[in-house]
């Protein structure tokens, strides 16, 4: 059955598909995180959080043919969960990697992360989970790559922008900004208004810019 819906993952836990019981991944995950097995996860191999799950593509899946592609497409169509595809990229499966990457990332818009073996996969899953734990514990600065709304003073930038007008250097930029206050007002000033501040030639240059 196509089961790809959301499922409640307790804090700091991972819910694994029953078929992974006893596998190398499961063994290496246990001890680091709390792993619970369930047997009705359908297309999904591991649920990391209420919104994120993992689909695992082994070397054997890649070599066997296109079945894994159907599985990914079915997941993508059936689920609005964030799907992370972990793929075994080995010497044998390397030749298929580029095509898989194109399908997963560029066509399906999912995340693809290559690993060399199940050991590496367990290390990667551990990092992903510890990330969600930090996130849920209201540590909002936990992700260094998430844009922070920095409120920087605009004055230095405005000063620099005005200096890009031909004929205007630091001194004139400062005089102009003191007189007109904003880029908008400066650009709408008449030659007559500009002349007393910067002289005739530059006033014309600014006006025609």
């Amino acid at each position: 059955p196509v089961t790809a819906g959301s499922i409640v993952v307790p804090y700091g836990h991972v819910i694994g598909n029953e078929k992974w019981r006893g596998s190398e991944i499961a063994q290496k995950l246990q001890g680091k995180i709390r792993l619970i097995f369930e047997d009705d996860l359908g297309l999904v191999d591991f649920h990391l959080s209420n919104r994120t799950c993992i689909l695992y593509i082994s070397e054997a899946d890649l070599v066997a043919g296109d079945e894994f592609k159907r599985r990914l497409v079915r997941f993508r169509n059936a689920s609005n969960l964030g799907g992370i595809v972990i793929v075994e990229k080995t010497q044998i499966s390397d030749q298929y990697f580029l095509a898989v990457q194109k399908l997963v990332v560029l066509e399906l818009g999912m995340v693809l992360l290559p690993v060399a073996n199940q050991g590496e996969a367990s290390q990667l899953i551990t990092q992903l989970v510890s990330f969600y734990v930090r996130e849920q514990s209201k540590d909002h600065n936990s992700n260094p790559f998430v844009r922070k709304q920095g409120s920087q003073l605009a004055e230095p930038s405005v000063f620099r922008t005005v200096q890009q007008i031909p004929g205007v250097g630091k001194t004139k930029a400062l005089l102009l900004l003191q007189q007109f206050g904003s880029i908008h007002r400066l650009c709408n000033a008449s030659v007559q208004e500009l002349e007393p501040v910067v002289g005739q030639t530059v006033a014309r240059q600014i006006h025609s810019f």
Partner: protein
Amino acid sequence: LFPRAPPEQTPSLCVLADSREISSGAEVISCLKARHGVKVQVCSLSSSDYVVSNRMAVERKLLSELLNSVNRNKVTQRIQRLQSVFERICVIVEKDRVRPGDTSRLLQRTQYYDGVLAALARAGVRILFSSCQEETAALLKDLVLVEQRKDAAIRVPTEVEGHKREMLNFYLSIPNLSYLAALNMCHHFDSVKKMVNSSPLDIAAGAQVSPQKAEEIFRYLHYGFDVQMLPENLCAKGR
């Protein structure tokens, strides 16, 4: 009379490349041009390595840079900067070049690296993996094609001269504005005055940016300058 050739169905593909890529990614650039027929405009992008559409920047990172936490700050700052300029970001993780017989650079996967991948994925940054510069070029071309399908392709002439060059420099000094948005502005507005008097909606259409970004630009142009807030070292120099 001969029938005229039908108009070209697919518009030419175009990317902007940062000038530093000439030395660090020479093969990427030559492959893009020679093998994939992509027009590469080299310019001083400063923020990203490549720009593949109106909204997407691509950062090329060597695997060794992401394996070692020594580069943590550099990488973080660069991605944060990209986040404030571009709507979409893609990181291409490229395998380092290894000379035949050189085994000293056999790179071990680190916990730090897995943490970086997790954080990037969580921040909505697309990640692609490449084993060499040729593959990176092919990935860049794929990205250009995808963005073209989504109607975000670079459509304006990428070279500007004379008065347009002066206008470009003016637009480039607006904080958190991408090179391409500045370029779009150059071609869309006849004069700087026209641009400065535009509504946020006009700015969004002219620069091909999101409504939020257009709003940000609008606020900047109308920002009331207070000389007291200018750092001492900046205003002192001019006197």
